[in-house]
């Protein structure tokens, strides 16, 4: 097969340096940059494909300042053949929509259009560490009009040269077969990046990095840079740390450290929770006249994600925040929920009980599981006909790929993974008006260290909401609402992806949500198959504590724990009284699932592990010494937490 593999990469500041305070340790002008971690995994995925097709052409593309050449050079030294950098001042300040469009235009300029008869595959990292939106791969795919799969862990070509992707979903994974061309975004849990070889590095120095300007690729100026972006960052503020600084347990051996832990726990008082983002006043005082720019757009649309025949919890949370927004908007604002699936109509009642005013039902036997293309079609058609002002999705693996793809078609901006949403105003000093009402989407960024407020001026306004952040609204079974059937017109390509297998293990282990103590194991505890962790939990259970064990994605992928035990972005989000993280380095995806725990104890060999940034108590040491010591002192331990 005459395959071309195109990698989209972004250069980002080293995450550890982003966190560093103003201690003068690092000269920020020299702040080091790396290839975004997820992008590194995507690079490796491309190299793996080349193993099967040694003649495949490997391209790497990026957009950014010329300093990005360093990362492109690195990609070349890994074995990529050609590098292209779209670098133009006019692109500065582009949001994800503008970025997706620019990159897609670059690819089209290079000949990679849907119509190109030669097969190609676009690989990208799932999300960047400085933006965390995960939008761009979807937006590139939408702009090229080709199919996509995001949150993919592994890809390979089977014996019939069909591309098979393993896509991560909540509580499991899906195997799917995709046609070419397509866009794939890779999670950082796949095959880690190889080191460059000297021979390839030497060759890479001889290669040219092609630098292109916007004029070279005929990019439309309408959607370029800060002025052409549908969203703006209205405000960025530092996030208050939710926890007091970690207390590291000192001691010459495990016993002393555990003794100190017990002492520290007994002294610990309830910590102060982060105050919620304060809701702003309705319209800022300003002398300028108020301008409503919504035009005919009105009402709120949400998506009811159906998993295993049930509405997912995060979609119900969405109805709560939608209601709050509706109350801040015009009195007659309605909440419409799209319910798509096979035999799902009966779920409408629940949606209405939780706050939907109208449920739009699309039923098709082919839609038992979520699929990007048909679901996008439904939303496109409904939005075109009904023009909602706000569209909300839960920021699940599906919501985070579906929303940006749909938003490309409406040319809207989109804000990812919000933790607070409210209606506010925007003072446009240039035009001397106050734009009101407008959706203020608040989202953590820069590794959860900053809270950014994003505003979009194109309607509908799209946001995805972080699961587990918003409360479930009160259920009122007497509420009245309308249920309407909707029959979309399917495109012939809507069902071009074949779902081969869906594996989900979410039925059991609901008790993880109720556990008082969760002991979770990561990569650092795999040598004994988590045996010690299980023993500790068993002991706690014998002592009458509601305890349960859990694991990180790596451990689950390694087959040492069921998917249902996975904590993190693609696993469960838990809030136990005490969370003991053992041998867990603290990848942000895991932190997302446990940072709401009341108290966190981290035990790890590596004093530099990021987990210690998030914990209340830390023990640096081997788990095989610490856990037995903890078990020996279990009664004392139980009495203090």
């Amino acid at each position: 097969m005459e395959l071309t593999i195109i990698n989209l990469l972004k250069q980002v500041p080293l995450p550890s340096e982003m966190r560093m305070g103003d201690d003068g340790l690092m000269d920020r002008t020299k702040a080091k940059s790396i290839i975004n971690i997820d992008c590194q995994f995507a690079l490796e995925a491309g190299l793996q494909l080349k193993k099967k097709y040694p003649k495949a052409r490997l391209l790497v593309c990026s957009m950014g300042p010329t300093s990005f050449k360093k990362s492109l050079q690195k990609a070349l030294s890994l074995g990529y053949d050609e590098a292209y950098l779209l670098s133009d001042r006019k692109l500065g300040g582009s949001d994800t929509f503008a970025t997706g469009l620019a990159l897609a235009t670059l690819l089209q300029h290079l000949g990679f259009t849907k119509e190109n008869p030669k097969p190609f595959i676009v690989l990208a990292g799932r999300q960047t560490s400085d933006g965390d939106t995960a939008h761009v791969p979807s937006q590139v795919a939408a702009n090229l009009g080709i199919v996509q799969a995001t949150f993919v862990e592994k890809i390979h070509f089977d014996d019939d040269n069909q591309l098979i992707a393993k896509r991560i979903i909540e509580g499991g994974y899906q195997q799917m077969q995709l046609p070419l061309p397509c866009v794939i975004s890779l999670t950082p849990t796949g095959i880690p990046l190889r080191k460059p070889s000297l021979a390839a590095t030497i060759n890479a120095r001889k290669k040219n990095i092609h630098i292109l300007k916007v004029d070279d690729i005929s990019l439309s100026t309408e959607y370029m840079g800060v002025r052409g972006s549908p969203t703006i960052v209205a405000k960025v503020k530092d996030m208050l740390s939710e926890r007091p600084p970690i207390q590291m347990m000192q001691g010459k051996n495990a016993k002393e450290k555990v003794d100190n832990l017990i002492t520290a726990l007994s002294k610990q008082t309830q910590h102060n929770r982060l105050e919620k983002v304060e809701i702003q006043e309705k319209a800022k005082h300003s002398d300028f006249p108020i301008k409503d720019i919504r035009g005919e757009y009105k009402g709120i649309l949400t998506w009811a994600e159906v998993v295993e025949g049930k509405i997912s919890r995060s979609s119900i949370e969405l109805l709560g925040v939608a209601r709050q927004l509706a109350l801040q908007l015009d009195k007659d604002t309605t909440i419409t929920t799209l319910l798509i699936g096979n035999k799902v109509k009966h779920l409408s009642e629940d949606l209405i009980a939780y706050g939907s005013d109208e449920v739009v039902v699309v039923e098709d036997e082919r839609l038992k599981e979520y699929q990007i293309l048909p679901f996008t079609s439904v939303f496109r058609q409904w939005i075109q006909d009904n023009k909602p002002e706000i569209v909300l999705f839960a920021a699940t693996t599906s919501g985070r790929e579906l929303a940006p793809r749909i938003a490309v078609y409406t040319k809207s901006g989109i804000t990812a993974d919000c933790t607070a949403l409210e209606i506010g105003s925007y003072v446009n000093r240039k035009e001397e008006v106050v734009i009101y009402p407008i959706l203020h989407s608040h989202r953590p960024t820069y590794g959860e260290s900053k809270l950014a407020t994003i505003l979009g001026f194109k309607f509908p306004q799209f946001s995805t909401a972080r699961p587990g952040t918003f409360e479930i609204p009160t259920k009122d079974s007497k509420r009245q609402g309308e249920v309407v059937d909707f029959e979309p017109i399917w495109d012939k390509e809507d069902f071009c992806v074949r779902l081969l297998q869906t594996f989900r293990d979410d039925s059991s282990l609901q008790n993880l949500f109720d556990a008082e103590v969760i002991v979770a194991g990561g990569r650092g505890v795999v040598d004994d198959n988590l045996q010690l962790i299980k023993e500790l939990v068993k002991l706690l259970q014998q002592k009458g504590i509601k305890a349960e064990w859990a694991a990180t994605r790596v451990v689950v992928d390694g087959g040492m724990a069921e998917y249902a035990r996975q904590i993190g972005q693609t696993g469960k989000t838990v809030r136990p009284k005490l969370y003991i993280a053992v041998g867990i380095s603290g990848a942000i995806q895991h932190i997302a699932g446990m940072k709401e725990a009341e108290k966190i104890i981290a035990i790890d060999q590596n004093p530099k592990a990021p987990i210690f940034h998030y914990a209340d108590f830390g023990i640096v040491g081997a788990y095989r010494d610490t856990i037995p010591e903890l078990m020996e002192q279990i009664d004392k331990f139980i009495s203090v937490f």
Partner: protein
Amino acid sequence: MNDINTVHTDVLIIGGGPAGLATAIHLANLLRENSQSRRIMVLDKGKSIGSHILSGALIKPDIFKQLFKDKDFNQIPFDSKVSKDRIVLLGKKGKIKLPFPIPYMRNKGNYSASLGELCRYMAAVAEEKGVEVYSGFSVNEVLYENSKIVGAKTIDTGVDREGNPMENYQEGTKVYADVVVFAEGVRGTLSQEIIKKYNLNNNKNEQMYSLGCKELWSVPTGNIQEGEVYHTMGYPLSMREFGGGFIYGLKDNKVALGLVVGLDYGDPTFDVHHAFQVWKTHAFVHRIIQGGKLLEYGAKTLPEAGLYAIPKLSVDHALIVGDSAGFLTIPALKGIHLAVHSAMLAAETIQQALLKNDFSDSLLSSYEKKVYQSKIYKEMYPVRNVRQAFANGLIMGGIQFAFQFISGGRGLRGRVYTPKDSQSTQKMENFKGKTFQQRFGKQLDFDKQLTFDKSTDVYYSGTQHDEYQVPHLHVKDKNSFNAINIKQYGAPCQHFCPAEVYEIYTHKNGEQELRIHFENCVHCKTCDIKSVNEAIAWRLPNGDNGPDHQYM
């Protein structure tokens, strides 16, 4: 030979420190002067050039004027010119300034520098002259054909801890060259291999080493002026330890300070890092760093045995330059200018070899002849026995040093032999006197303001190692290690390692076990040198692993 993982060059230089880069620069100059055009390749294992470089450093600048003859001297990024030069004898409480300067220790006209910064400059100059410099590549294998050196190979990466290839396996690159220059620095792993294979240290003294721990601080204005240089003797070292401290005032209110201790000490519990921390609490040192903050940490060994421990410097197709050969003088504690000088002499020889297309030892050995006719010899000969003299302790050493000074280097005996550093450690039961712990007791509780434990210091070295690779620290025989190094000697590795790589874990049943945290390693190689029976081998980890020094 058309394998994609094979590369050919005329000259391969292993190591991008001052010696390797000086070889490259001078050779490039000579080739240009003779209208020759050849490929010169420098490989370094550090993340970038300078990442693995650590030195005091005080530099005699003259040789750089020759090396950079086409450059403006002011462009060379030295830090500051020595403006004040003092030697101070520290007692437990007070200090005595030595009334007389010690010969060979005068630093007038010398410059302080970050050697890493200097190497980055050298690399840029080399590249400007067409030299190819690649960092981030560990060269861990010498390639031989018919038992002659034909090149070297970079490490295979993407393997698990047992060395089995994983999905991201990447085979190393074979680099074939007419001449291979070994410029790996102190105790170069491949240099050691060829010295052994070709018996290059036949009838030579054993190399002796010191370990230096260094910190770079930022201090309040007024604590020290740039160009101020202090060397300390005495506290906290006893008469049985050879060594001393250094404090160099740098520009921008930075100060480089460190403690260097000879590894021929006997106390199995002696800890150079901890001694360094205790030294910082002495009022004389404390006042200089008071109110400041730690910027960087690192540790490195120095070859100190001098002239008689320099191996034969060439074989067919290969030369050894710089610290890998042991070009350093005691008591001046300077080797950079000698390393550069040796490199330039090597370059002259290589240029001749390339011209005549003769890479046999009969031609390459003219490098060694040049060394012994050069200023290197003139500088090293009079102090050829100094370090060995001090092996008997400071008092006897002082007397012998004084005698040698008068006699022009002749010892009380003609040539003074010493054992290997790995042989000088005493068994726990044989060691008489206070152990290191007993000597300093509570002073070893570090406050993390002025004094730091090893793991905190390691953090400031920027060290990292790939999780998946064969651990680069290898215990040759576990049983004998347990029986001898742990049981009889009390596992000195847990003390001498300045980076907390070695942990002795005692199980509940009393059984002791060595745990190796190779990810902490700062690449000083003390374990390779000092372990009893040389029980630990330091091997090359993946490229771009190890410390990431910025201004050391």
